[in-house]
């Protein structure tokens, strides 16, 4: 990917003789974490998080996806103690975040970098000074700050912007500064709060590529929250889907995209797999087979069977006319992944035979509805 080329010279990040060793990633464990806001002014008590239990593997890129207000932001902020849960524990490599005193929490926060949707850069400081801020706060000696910041500026590809102010930068460049700043203290965890939501698609891709590169090079554990499935698809290993404060689904990104269980997950997945029904078609869809002319199926191609020539076999061996309505073939984490929506004649025997045949090829077929 061309977005990676600017960071080709980034390898010294792990090799240099830094005072802190290359950190690697920390494991994060949420255990029955709840956050309740008490009833106020006639409003009922609100649970932003409801007994969330979740494991984040060290060195992984874990995505938490949910709609706004689902609680993902509260969950992310529980990791560095910006938000204090009302029940349950968050542990980082076994360290209970909730049990730390203010000084302990500050020390922990130096090991957890964070990037933000709106970048949160100091408008009064240059690129260099913005990246240097966490080091200054930590009392790092001046010459070491200079060395480290210049290294980071190179890593994120902003060498020519060293002395510029944030207003002189594009959104993508600002987020690169944010990422460099978050990495300044060599954190073991990097939290991303909708870091690409304010960026255009191309910039989003290059920022995600940068995050993935940093994860690969430093081993830092990345936890990101987003409302966009394509972000998850692009860089995450693991995904957790959150809705009204509960984790409703969790697993490997490929598994969840291939076989989403919960309704919310399905709608998120549909946004990236290209398998959403055309709207005009969806409007004509009914759940009742009576008097229908065609039945609409979703066929999911995954794993080793993703390339099976199932459509041609359907028409050949079953003599069924298959109309392709929507579809997309893609790769997720290097594994092929396809998703096809087709219409077949609405006869129960035909439908059963088609489902059986696709099943025999190791694919899944699911009836979405019927069309008259």
């Amino acid at each position: 990917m061309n977005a990676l080329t600017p960071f080709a010279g980034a390898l010294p990040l792990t090799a240099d003789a830094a005072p802190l060793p290359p950190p690697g990633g920390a494991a994060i464990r949420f255990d029955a974490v709840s956050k309740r806001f008490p009833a106020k002014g006639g409003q009922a008590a609100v649970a932003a998080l409801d007994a969330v239990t979740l494991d984040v593997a060290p060195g992984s890129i874990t995505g938490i996806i949910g709609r706004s207000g689902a609680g993902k932001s509260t969950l992310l902020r529980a990791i560095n103690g910006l938000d204090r849960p009302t029940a349950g524990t968050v542990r980082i490599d076994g360290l209970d975040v909730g049990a730390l005193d203010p000084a302990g929490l500050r020390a922990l926060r130096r090991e957890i970098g964070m990037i933000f949707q709106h970048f949160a850069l100091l408008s009064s400081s240059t690129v260099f000074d913005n990246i240097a801020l966490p080091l200054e706060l930590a009392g790092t000696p001046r010459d070491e700050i200079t060395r480290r910041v210049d290294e980071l500026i190179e890593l994120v590809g902003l060498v020519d912007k060293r002395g510029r102010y944030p207003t002189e930068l594009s959104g993508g460049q600002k987020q690169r500064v944010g990422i460099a700043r978050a990495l300044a203290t060599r954190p073991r965890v990097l939290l991303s709060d909708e870091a690409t939501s304010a960026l255009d698609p191309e910039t989003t891709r290059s920022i995600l590529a940068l995050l993935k590169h940093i994860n690969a090079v430093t081993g830092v554990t990345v936890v990101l929250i987003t409302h966009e499935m394509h972000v998850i698809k692009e860089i995450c290993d693991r995904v957790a889907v959150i809705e009204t404060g509960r984790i409703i689904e969790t697993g490997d990104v490929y598994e969840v995209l291939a076989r989403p269980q919960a309704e919310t997950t399905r709608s998120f997945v549909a946004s990236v797999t290209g398998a959403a029904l055309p709207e005009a078609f969806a409007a004509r869809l009914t759940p009742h087979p009576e008097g229908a002319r065609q039945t609409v199926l979703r066929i999911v191609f995954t794993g080793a069977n993703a390339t099976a020539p199932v459509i041609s076999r359907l028409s050949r061996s079953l003599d069924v006319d298959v109309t392709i309505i929507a579809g997309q073939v893609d790769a997720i984490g290097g594994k092929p992944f396809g998703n096809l929506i087709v219409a077949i004649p609405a006869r129960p025997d035909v439908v059963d035979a088609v489902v059986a045949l696709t099943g025999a090829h190791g694919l899944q077929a699911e009836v979405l509805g019927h069309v008259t």
Partner: protein
Amino acid sequence: MSPEIARLLVEALGQTLYMVASAGLIGTALGLPLGVFLATSGRGELFEAVALNRVLGLIVNATRSTPFIILVVAIIPFTRLVAGTSIGTTAAIVPLTVAATPFIARIIEAAIREVDGGLIEASRAMGATPLQIVRKVLLPEALPAIVLGLTLTAVSLIGYSAMVGAVGGGGLGDLGIRFGYQRFMPEVMAAVVIVLIALVQAVQSLGDWIARRVNKRLRSA
């Protein structure tokens, strides 16, 4: 204009500058921490102290709602305590400072409250102490607004300083009243007004220039 009047004018200008500069500097030294505290001690803020915040807010409001000429007279015992006398240019610095401090505090408070809350959160996430957040984030980010606010304060103080003639403070306003008005010397009045206008213009231009220098937000990309 006679050389005598010119000499009086120069002397009065010197007194005005002395009073305004002193009250401005001392007022900033006192008003800056007060304003920072007012802006950061509300509920859920960095130095949460809601009761103290309320009390200080009330005192600030009380001082600001007292007309300056009343304040000058009302705090004469305090002025005597601080300056040793209640009469003269140096003594006049006391009521000017008392008036300037809450004014500056409110200006600093407003400027700090304008700083994006996301920056406070980001610095907390970096492990900054509350004091570091004030020093490294809030004050630098609020600086352009603070500079403009202090300019406004200086202009107001020039106006207030015209009233301290009531306690023998001297200055341009006093010269205008005593010579221009009471001795029917319209040319003195005119000269005082012109010097005051020029002074206010100079202060404002200087403030605007500094604010532009420290404001990195307006540089277009």
